[in-house]
C-alpha cells in the first residue's frame, strides 16, 4: 500500500474544518472521511497481484550503443489497472524512462519499451518491476514489486575494428591472393592465377604458361592452420587505468583484432583469461564464430585485485596445448611482477612455443618524462625516465629469452600487435 500527495492535501484542507466547528467530533469526522477514502481507494484500485510480466528485446548490446528491452504487462484481474510502473535496472545500465504510466484494461496486455544505454561492460540484470496502482479517488494505491528477470550482456566495444580492413589487405598481400605488385610471400605453394600487370616476372610458371594461351603466375601463401593462443592477464596490473580505460580493456581490444585477423588468415585461435584461476576460455571455435565467442567471453571479465599466478598460467597452458603454437601474453611489463612470476618460467614456455608479450604503456609516463621547468616536473621527469629504463631493461631481458615484445600506448597496441603477428607470419616463424 502507498499513500498519495492528494491525501496529504486533503488532510491539510481538513485542518480548516475544526477552526469553524471546534469539536473533537469534527476532527473524528475528518479522520473518518480520510480513512474511508483510503479504504475505498485500496479496495477499488487495479489488482497488482493479478499482473504477469513478460520480457522481449535485445540480449546483447555493444558498449556505447543502445538496446531496447520491452516489458509486457498482462492484466489478469477483473478491473482496469491504472498505475505508475518502474522497471528497475542497475545505474550503469542507463535505463530510461525511469517511470512510466500504464493503463491496462482487464484481460489485456500493454508493452512498455525501455531503452538501455549501458556505461560499462558486463552483464546487466533487471532488478525488479514495481507497480503502484492508484485507486479511483487518487488517495491511496496498491504497490507491489515483482521480479521480471532479463539480462543484457554489454559487449566490449572493439574500437580497433577500424584497423581490420587495413590489416586484412596486408594479409592478402602476404598470401598473394591480392592482385598486386608484390609476389606472395611464404613458402607454401598455393595456386596458379593469370598474370596481371605488375606481377613479379620471376613468379611466372612457364610450364603452366606453355599449356595454356595465357601467362600464368604461381602464388605462394604463408603456412596455414597454425595455432595461436591468446592469454589475458586479469590480475592486479590489468586494473590500472591507462588514459581513460582500464588496461584490461585495451588488451581485450588488441586480442580481438588479432583474433579476427588470425582466423581470417586461417590460423586456429584459442583464448584464455587467467589470474589465479581460469576466468574465461574460448577453445576450438570455428573461423566464423570465433569473434562472437571471444566478445561474449570478454564481456563479464573484470580485473581482479590479486597478483597473477604465472606458474599456474604456464602449467595450464602447457597442459592444454601440446603442439607448438604462438602464445600471445597480454599483460603489463611490471618489473617486480615479471621477475618473480614469469621470467623464471619462460625457458619452459619458449622451449616448446613461440612467445609474444604485448603490453600497454601509459602515455602519462611519456608526458611526465617531457616535463621541464619547475622542480616538481623535473622530479616527475626523472621518475618517468627511471620507469622507462626499467621497462627497457625488462624488454631486453625478455628478448634475450627469445620472446617477442610489443609495447605500445593504448591507441596503438591493437594495430602494433597485428603488425607483429603479420611480421611473424611473413617470416614464416609461426
Amino acid at each position, binding site marked *: 500500500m*502507498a*499513500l*498519495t500527495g492528494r*491525501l*496529504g492535501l486533503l*488532510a*491539510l484542507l481538513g*485542518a*480548516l474544518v*475544526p*477552526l469553524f*466547528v*471546534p*469539536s*473533537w467530533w*469534527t*476532527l473524528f469526522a475528518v*479522520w473518518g472521511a*480520510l480513512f474511508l477514502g483510503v479504504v475505498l481507494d485500496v479496495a477499488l484500485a487495479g489488482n497488482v497481484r493479478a499482473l504477469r510480466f513478460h520480457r522481449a528485446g535485445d540480449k546483447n548490446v555493444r558498449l556505447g550503443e543502445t538496446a531496447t528491452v520491452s516489458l509486457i504487462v498482462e492484466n489478469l484481474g477483473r478491473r482496469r489497472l491504472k498505475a505508475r510502473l*518502474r522497471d*528497475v*535496472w*542497475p*545505474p*550503469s545500465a*542507463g535505463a530510461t524512462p525511469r517511470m512510466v504510466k500504464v493503463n491496462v484494461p482487464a484481460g489485456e496486455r500493454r508493452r512498455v519499451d525501455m531503452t538501455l544505454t549501458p*556505461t*560499462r561492460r558486463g552483464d546487466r540484470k533487471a*532488478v525488479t518491476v*514495481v507497480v503502484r496502482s492508484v485507486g479511483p479517488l487518487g488517495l491511496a494505491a496498491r*504497490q507491489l*514489486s515483482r521480479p521480471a528477470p532479463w539480462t543484457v550482456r554489454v559487449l566490449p566495444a572493439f574500437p580497433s575494428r577500424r584497423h581490420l580492413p587495413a590489416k586484412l589487405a596486408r594479409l592478402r598481400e602476404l598470401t598473394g591472393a591480392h592482385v598486386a605488385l608484390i609476389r606472395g610471400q611464404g613458402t607454401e605453394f598455393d595456386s596458379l592465377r593469370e598474370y596481371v600487370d605488375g606481377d613479379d616476372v620471376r613468379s611466372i610458371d612457364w610450364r603452366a604458361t606453355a599449356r595454356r594461351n595465357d601467362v600464368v603466375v604461381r602464388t605462394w601463401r604463408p603456412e596455414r592452420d597454425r595455432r595461436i593462443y591468446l592469454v589475458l592477464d586479469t590480475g592486479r596490473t590489468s*586494473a*590500472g*587505468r591507462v588514459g*581513460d*580505460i*582500464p588496461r584490461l580493456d585495451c588488451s581485450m581490444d588488441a586480442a580481438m583484432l588479432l583474433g579476427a585477423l588470425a582466423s581470417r588468415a586461417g590460423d586456429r585461435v584459442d583464448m584464455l583469461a587467467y589470474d589465479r584461476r581460469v576466468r574465461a576460455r574460448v577453445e576450438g571455435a570455428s573461423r566464423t564464430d570465433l569473434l562472437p565467442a571471444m566478445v561474449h567471453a570478454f564481456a563479464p571479465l573484470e*580485473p581482479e*585485485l590479486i597478483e597473477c599466478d604465472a606458474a599456474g598460467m604456464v602449467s595450464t597452458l602447457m597442459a592444454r596445448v601440446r603442439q607448438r603454437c604462438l602464445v600471445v601474453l597480454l599483460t603489463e611489463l611490471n618489473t617486480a611482477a615479471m621477475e618473480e612470476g614469469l621470467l623464471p618460467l619462460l625457458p619452459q614456455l619458449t622451449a616448446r612455443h613461440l612467445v609474444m608479450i604485448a603490453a600497454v604503456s*601509459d602515455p*602519462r*609516463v611519456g608526458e*611526465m*618524462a617531457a616535463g*621541464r*621547468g*619547475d*622542480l*616538481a616536473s*623535473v*622530479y*616527475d621527469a*626523472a*621518475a618517468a*625516465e*627511471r*620507469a622507462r*629504463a626499467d621497462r*627497457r631493461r625488462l624488454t631486453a631481458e625478455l628478448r634475450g629469452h627469445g620472446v617477442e615484445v610489443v609495447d605500445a600506448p593504448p591507441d596503438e597496441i591493437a594495430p602494433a600487435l597485428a603488425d607483429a603477428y603479420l611480421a611473424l607470419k611473413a617470416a614464416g616463424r609461426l
Partner: protein
Amino acid sequence: MVTQTPPQSAQAGPGAEPPSARQVAGRRWRSARGVVAVLLAMVVIAVILAALRPATSAEALDPTSPKQDGSRALAEILRQNGTPVHVARDADDAVRQSAPGSVMLVTRTERLTREDLTRLASAQVDLVLVRPTSFALADLAPWVRKDGPTFEDADEPGCTMQAAALAGAVSLHESETYEVTASVTGAVTTCYKTEFGGPRVVQVRHGAKTVTVLGSASPLTNRRLTEEGNAALAMNLLGTNTTGADTPGSDAPGSATSVVWLVPDIPTEGTAAGQQSLGDLLPFGVKLFILQLLVAVLLVALWRGRRLGPVVAEALPVVVRSAETVEGRSRLYRAGHARDRASDALRSGARERLVPLLGLPRSSAQDPSAAQEIVTAVAHRTPYDETYVGAALYGPEPLDDAGLIALSDVLDDLERQVRQS
C-alpha cells in the same frame, strides 16, 4: 547515475594542479566574507545599542543600596529627620505597611503586575510615582499621560506646589514629561515645565488622596542627591519639611507620619497571570487545527517516504591510475631531495636517446667504458667542448634544486643540437 570516478584526463596539463593551501584559504575567505561582514555589523550594532541604553542596575532606587543609582542616602536622611522608612518588596506588603497619613513611594513600576496596580490604586494613601510606566499611570493616575522624554536640565519650579517651590531649582537630567487630560477632577499642580513640552512633575489632588508623578529618578539617587535642590525636593515630597514649620492641612504632603518605599521584586512565575500556559490561551479550534496539521504532515511524510521500488546498489570495478606508482616515486624523490638518483635517471634517459642518433650501439648508453666515446661524439656534433658535454652527461650530482633544473635543460639542449646536426 553512474558512480564511476571520472578518469583523469590525459591532457589535463598544468591547469589541473591541486590548489595550494593559500588558494584554498583565499577561496574560502571570498565565499565567507559576506557572512562575516553581516555578523560583524550585527555585533557592532548590538554593542552600540547596549552602550547607548542607560544602564540601570538591579538595585536602582533601592533604599538599602549604596550604589550610584541606589537611594540609601535619601532613606538615611529621612530616618535621621524622624520619618520612619518602611521598605516593601511587593504591593501587598506595601499596602499592609501603609497607615493613614503615610506616603507611598512607588518605584520600578515596570515590575508591578496588573493586580498589584489595582491594589495600589485602591489603597487610601498618598502616592509618589517615580517614572511610572504607561500601564502604571493608567491605573494610578489616569489623568496624566506621558508626553515624551526631555534632556533639558530643569531650572525654577514655576509653580505653587510647596514642595517644589521650597526646593527651588533642581537638576532632573533626563526626564519624562507629562500632559494632563482635560477630564481631570481635583486640584492639579504642574511644575518644572520644559521650554516647549509639558511639566516634569505633576501633582493631582483627588479627594483625600494626593498622587505625585515624578518624571525623573535623579533626585532620589545617591549620585544626584546633592545636586541643586534635589535633596530638598525629594524630602519635601516624602514628608520631611526641611524649611521651618510645617503647616498641617496644607497642600504639601509634608506631614507624613511614615514613608513606605515600594521597590517591587520581579514577579515570579505561577502568580496570577503567569499561571496560564500557551495552551490555556489558545482557542480549542486552533488546537484541533494544529493536531490536524500534524496529521497532514504525517500523511505527507508517509507519501514521500514510500519510494517506487528499491535503491539499486552496484559493484563497480576498481579504478587505479596506471601512472600512480611513477608519480609516487617522483614525490618520494622530491621529499628526499634525491638529486643523485634524479640526475642519474635524467642522464641515462638522455644517453639512451642520444646513442642511436650518434650511430653507436644501444648497449653503450649504460656502459661506463663507452663514456669517452659518447662524449667525443656529442662534442663533435655540438658547439660545446668535451668538458661541458662530459659534465652534462656524466658529471657529479647537482648541488641544489636549481642545478637539477638547469641540468634537465642542458640535456634537452644537447639532445636537440645532436638531432639537428
